[in-house]
Structures are given as structure tokens and as C-alpha cells.
């Protein structure tokens, strides 16, 4: 009989499983369980009820008196698979009347699944191995990491912070560094920093994956090692501040790294940093950018980090641009479907969720959909193409770079 090891579940998580009132508030708005496929076991309530049932069968009072009950392998595997269909978007945290911190619960549940040999899923294998071997999830050689910057390096003045000290360390992230469709995100971010005469640099080819994918899929040990390697690089570079353009890297370095090691520099997202530059007049947005834009709050920025206003302030500061809001916005924002390893393991599900968000955006009448996360960008771009939508997908920094007044 397989006995589940519950010592990998947090004390607080075990408490929260009992605190769930089974009200179902989370089921209606859950992008994967409720909205996209209506499967109870994928919803927060479904996962809580099932996992609780399993560990109570082995550790509850009845198990203590009559002996633990065997949990069939297929049921355990079903729970594991369904648990990985969650994007960890945090919508359930927003709506839970019992105020349960479900984001922590799902990440911890995956750590528990890994510890019990039930996770991650085979589909995650290539990404995990790629990060462990190449320090990025895209199986790209380390030597190609800084290739995105070659054509702008001199014009913008990007330093190699391991050779030359810079005030600000720009943490590029794997997706913007390697994905040819996303690298403009890194290019535009660097152009914006350069235009504001920010003393900044990158870790170049030495930058490693932030470990977000590992931590989100429950591989805490690998994620911890990845984080420690980066923390060591941060120490060497010793910047005063770190800026990330990737919402996932931002969340990971800001929230997870302090639990792993000491990070001396303050971590900010590029939207916070640029908003500060614009509001203090260090960055002038004088050029008109015509269009109607709607902004999608990435889960890792919004619900995970409560960063809602800065991106909007930037958009409002761009001349010619009209900002319109989707019906579900800020903490109620729909997920893009890519997070938590869902796009890797369940691409069709991810696309279905992304399409729902594209429909939200289309309803506003906007012609531009802007966001600040490479994963949301990737996901929406694919959904826009598949749907044949007239929306133009942009990264927020692309709009900022287009509005910079060089005079």
C-alpha cells in the first residue's frame, strides 16, 4: 500500500483544507475547472475535497482506529493530472469568502505531489531537463542568451554587470531572451531604459532561468538550486535595483527568492519602474500612438503582486492612446491560460482559456491588446491568430518605446 507523505504539505495548507466551506464560489470563476471545461476535480473545491479525502483516509481518526485505507493509483494519478491543469492564476484567492490563500495551496499541493512521486507530468519533463541542463526552458545554448541585445547594445548602452557595475540590473528572462517572437519585449524594455538614461546592464549569457517553472510545478529542490545560482550572480553584480520585464521572473525573484536566500537589491517590475520614470519626467512620452487599447492584467503581476495601477498610468500617459477596460479586470481579470505549466502539458486547454480572454478584449472595441508578461503575450498571440481576431497583440513596452520623444 502506498502511504502518502503529508509532511510536504504546509501546516497552513492542512489547516486551509479543513477551512474550505465547500461553498463553490471558486468553481464559477476558475478558468480551467469552471469556465473552460466544467470539471469539478480541476476546480479549487474539487481538489481540496479530493486531497483531503485521501489524506484523511490514511491519517484521519478512522484510519488511526481501523487502519489506513489504500488509495487506488488511478485515483491518485487522476488528482495529480487534474491538479496540473490549474494555471495558479489566483482567481480563487480573490473570490474565496474564507480568504484562503489558494495560490500558496496549489504550489504546495504540487510540491506534495512531487514528493509522493505523482508529479510533475511527463509533458513537463523536457522543460525541467532543459532548465537543469541549459539554464533555460527552451533547450537553447547558454551562449545565445544575450543574442537579442546585439543590434542595440551600443546604441542603448547595455552594460555587462558582471564586468562593469550598473545601478540597475535588467533581468531579461528566458522567454524574451530566446523566443524570436518575444525578444522585442526585451529589446523595447532596453530601449526604454536607455532613453531614460538609466545606468543599467544585464547578466548577459550568465543570466540563468529564474526557476519559476520549477517552483510552479512543485520541483522545489531544483527550483531552489536554480534560485541560489542566480542569487550568487546578483551578489557579484551588486546592483541597487533589479528590474524584470517578465511577470513570472518578477514574482519568483520578489516572492520566492527571499525564502531561499538573501537578495539585497530591490526587485521591481518594468511597469513600476517606467511609471516612475514617466511621472518624474525622466522619460518623455511625446509621440502620438493612435489607437484604442485594452490592458490585460497578468496573474503574476495582478493577483499575485497586486500591481494594477502602474501599467494603466503608463498607457494613459501615451498621447493618442485611448484606454478601455474589459468587463473582467484587475483582480477579477481572466487568466491567459498559460501559467502553472498548463500551456506545456495541456496546450488545447490553454488556447481555449486564452480565446475566452480574447473575446473579452474584442467586446471592448479596442484594436490593441496590451500586456506585460511574455507568457500572456505568447498565449494571446496564438489565440488571436487561431481565431482570426482583428486585435493587435503588443507588449506594453512596445507602446512606450513607440511614444518616446527623442528630441
Amino acid at each position, binding site marked *: 500500500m502506498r502511504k502518502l507523505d503529508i509532511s510536504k504539505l504546509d501546516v497552513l495548507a*492542512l*489547516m486551509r483544507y*479543513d477551512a474550505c466551506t465547500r461553498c463553490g464560489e471558486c468553481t*464559477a470563476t476558475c478558468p480551467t475547472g469552471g469556465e473552460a471545461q466544467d470539471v469539478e476535480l480541476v476546480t479549487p473545491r474539487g481538489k481540496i475535497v479530493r486531497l483531503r479525502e485521501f489524506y*484523511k483516509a490514511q*491519517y484521519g481518526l478512522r484510519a488511526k482506529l481501523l487502519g489506513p485505507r489504500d488509495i487506488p493509483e488511478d485515483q491518485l494519478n487522476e488528482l495529480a493530472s487534474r491538479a496540473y491543469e490549474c494555471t495558479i492564476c489566483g482567481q480563487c484567492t480573490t473570490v474565496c469568502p474564507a480568504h484562503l490563500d489558494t495560490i500558496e495551496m496549489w504550489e504546495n499541493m504540487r510540491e506534495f505531489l512531487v514528493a509522493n512521486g505523482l508529479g510533475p507530468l511527463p509533458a513537463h519533463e523536457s522543460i525541467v531537463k532543459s532548465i537543469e541542463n541549459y539554464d533555460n526552458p527552451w533547450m537553447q545554448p547558454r551562449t545565445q542568451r544575450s543574442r537579442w541585445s546585439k543590434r542595440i547594445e551600443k546604441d542603448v548602452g547595455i552594460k555587462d554587470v558582471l564586468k562593469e557595475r550598473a545601478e540597475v540590473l535588467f533581468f531579461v528572462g528566458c522567454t524574451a531572451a530566446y523566443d524570436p517572437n518575444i525578444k522585442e519585449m526585451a529589446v523595447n524594455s532596453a530601449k526604454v531604459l536607455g532613453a531614460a538614461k538609466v545606468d543599467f546592464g544585464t547578466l548577459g549569457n550568465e543570466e540563468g532561468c529564474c526557476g519559476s517553472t520549477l517552483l510552479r510545478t512543485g520541483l522545489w529542490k531544483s527550483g531552489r538550486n536554480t534560485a541560489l545560482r542566480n542569487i550568487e550572480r546578483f551578489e557579484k553584480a551588486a546592483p541597487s535595483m533589479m528590474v524584470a520585464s517578465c511577470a513570472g521572473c518578477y514574482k519568483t525573484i520578489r516572492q520566492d527568492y*527571499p525564502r531561499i536566500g538573501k537578495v539585497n537589491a530591490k526587485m521591481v517590475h518594468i511597469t513600476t519602474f517606467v511609471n516612475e520614470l514617466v511621472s518624474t519626467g525622466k522619460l518623455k512620452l511625446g509621440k502620438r500612438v493612435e489607437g484604442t487599447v485594452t490592458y490585460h492584467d497578468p496573474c503574476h503581476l495582478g493577483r499575485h503582486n497586486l500591481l494594477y495601477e502602474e501599467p494603466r498610468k503608463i498607457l494613459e500617459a501615451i498621447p493618442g492612446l485611448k484606454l478601455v477596460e474589459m468587463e473582467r479586470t484587475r483582480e477579477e481579470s481572466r487568466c491567459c491560460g498559460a501559467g502553472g505549466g498548463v500551456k506545456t502539458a495541456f496546450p488545447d486547454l490553454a488556447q481555449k482559456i486564452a480565446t475566452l480572454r480574447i473575446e473579452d478584449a474584442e467586446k471592448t472595441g479596442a484594436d490593441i491588446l496590451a500586456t506585460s508578461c511574455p507568457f500572456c503575450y505568447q498565449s494571446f498571440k496564438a489565440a488571436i491568430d487561431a481565431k482570426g481576431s482583428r486585435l493587435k497583440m503588443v507588449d506594453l513596452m512596445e507602446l512606450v518605446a513607440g511614444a518616446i520623444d527623442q528630441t
Partner: protein
Amino acid sequence: MSIYDPSMIPKQMPQDGYLKDKLWLYVPLFAVVLSACAIILVLPYETVYVRDEVYLDAFLVTVSVCVAVFILGTLYNVLLWMHGKGLSGSPEGRLVDLFKRSVRFFLSRRFGRALSVFLKDALYLSRLKDRSVLRWLMHLLILGGFAVMFVLDLAVTISLDFLKYEPMIADDGWAKLWLRDFGFDLVGTMMLLGLLIAAVRRFVFRPKIVRTELPDAASILSLLAVVLGGFILEGIGIAGDIQGHQIGDEYSFMGYAFSLVTPESLGDYYDEAWLIHGVMSALLIAYIPFSKLFHMIATPIAIEADRMLPQREASP
């Protein structure tokens, strides 16, 4: 299924066998439980108006066992939480440590903030109000009614059996009329209304987000049975002119309403009805740690823990 299958399964699983190994913890624990039971058994209960003492004794034995089951079940659940990671030491050691910390916390300046969190988020259910006024009202009526009834029950028992407070004992005493008669009926009515809304919503309208399995149905129906049972018992008492129900019937407004449709002859079975209501209430108490109703205890604790403990940085 997993890429880490065999190697990631821990070799050492948490070991069990508390009872034989941890007598140092369980002996005082059982002493506390037995003391609680003893207090229940030795109270004089001079103001319980059953005609045959056998019914009172049967109830007291039942309620003692049920309270013991409730305390042990609750502690077992809390001990199970202590199996998780995030604290050091054995589960029992963690529990004792947590208890000490809680005492220190309650005596600290942060208690005020914890109290406001409790009142706003756990009792007033601020977030639920924003999402659905009907469900908020439903839950507030049940929870509020239950909480006030618990406090009222405690206050009445102490003033009757310990303090011998005359206005609470005398049939026409203000405390008897306003607290024991009107007060209990008011909070009972709150609970009844809330439970009826919950039952109609769950069993008749069945909204998509509601999923009714045995624990959900059992929780609502058992609470409903106890609350309705209380009013029926009161109705029998008033209709049968039983001692304690002879003056100021209108203060027990719900019991009075029930008495209007209750035959006077049922008063002959008042003792039996009293015992049934008492046993059902006691069984409900024993059922709490093993049911969905345990969230009454776990949710406020989880809310406090989430809001008061240092968390990952949230706001930018």
C-alpha cells in the same frame, strides 16, 4: 505517470503510534476532557424542568460523551495540521509550542488587529457580502445565530446553576423572559431563517456552484432538525402548560406559535421530547469535528493565520 516515480517516493514515511509513545501529552489531554465531562455531570440542574430525573441523567451521560468526542476530534484534527511542514519538532511538540505562542499573542498588542480581522472577515464575512448579499445574509443568520446562542447558553447556565441569579430563575423574572424566552427564540429564528434559505437554495434552486453530497446535506439537515426540534419542544411545553412555560408565553414567540398547532395532550410526552432534542443537540456537537461544520473552527483560525503571520510580499 511521473518522471520522478520511484526515486522521489520518500523512504521514510511519518511514523504513527501516538497513544503508546506520547503518554506525557495524552494523559493531561484526557484529564482535561474528563474534567469537562465531570463539570457537566456535577452541575445541579435545579432549573431543568423534566418530571422524571432518568431523562436528565440519560441526557447528561450523552452530552458528556459527545463533548468528549468533540474535544478529542477537534484536537485530533489540529494535530493532523501539525504533521505538515513549516514548523519544527514532533506534531505534538508543535501543538504545544503553538498553544504557548497563541497565549503570548493574545496578550500582545497585535491582539487588537487580530480581533478586528476576526470580526470583519470571520464573523461579518466581508468578502461574501461583496459577492452575494443573499448568501452573506444566509450565512450571517446561521453563524450569528449559532454564535449568539452559544454565548447565551453559557451565560444562562452560569447564571442559573452557579450564580443562582433570581431574575433568570423566576418565571416572571426579566432575565427569564427576555433572555431565556425571547433571546433564545430570536437567535433560533435567525438560524431557522438562514437554514431555510440554505435548504431552499441547495435542494430546490440548486445553483450550478452548489454541489450537494452527503456531508453538505447532513450539515444543513442536522442543524435544521435541532433548531426546529427546539421550537417544537417549546410548543409542547407551552401547549401542555409544563413548568417553566406557564408565564409570559408571548416572549417565546416562536414556541408560542408552534404551541397554537400542538395538541395539549402532547404535554404528557414532554420529557421524551426534551430528551430527544437534547440528544440530537449533543450528537450535533460530537459530529462537528468530523463534518463540514468543522469549518466553524478551522476557517477563523486559517483567516487569522493568513492575515497575521508574515506572508510573501504582496503589494508592490
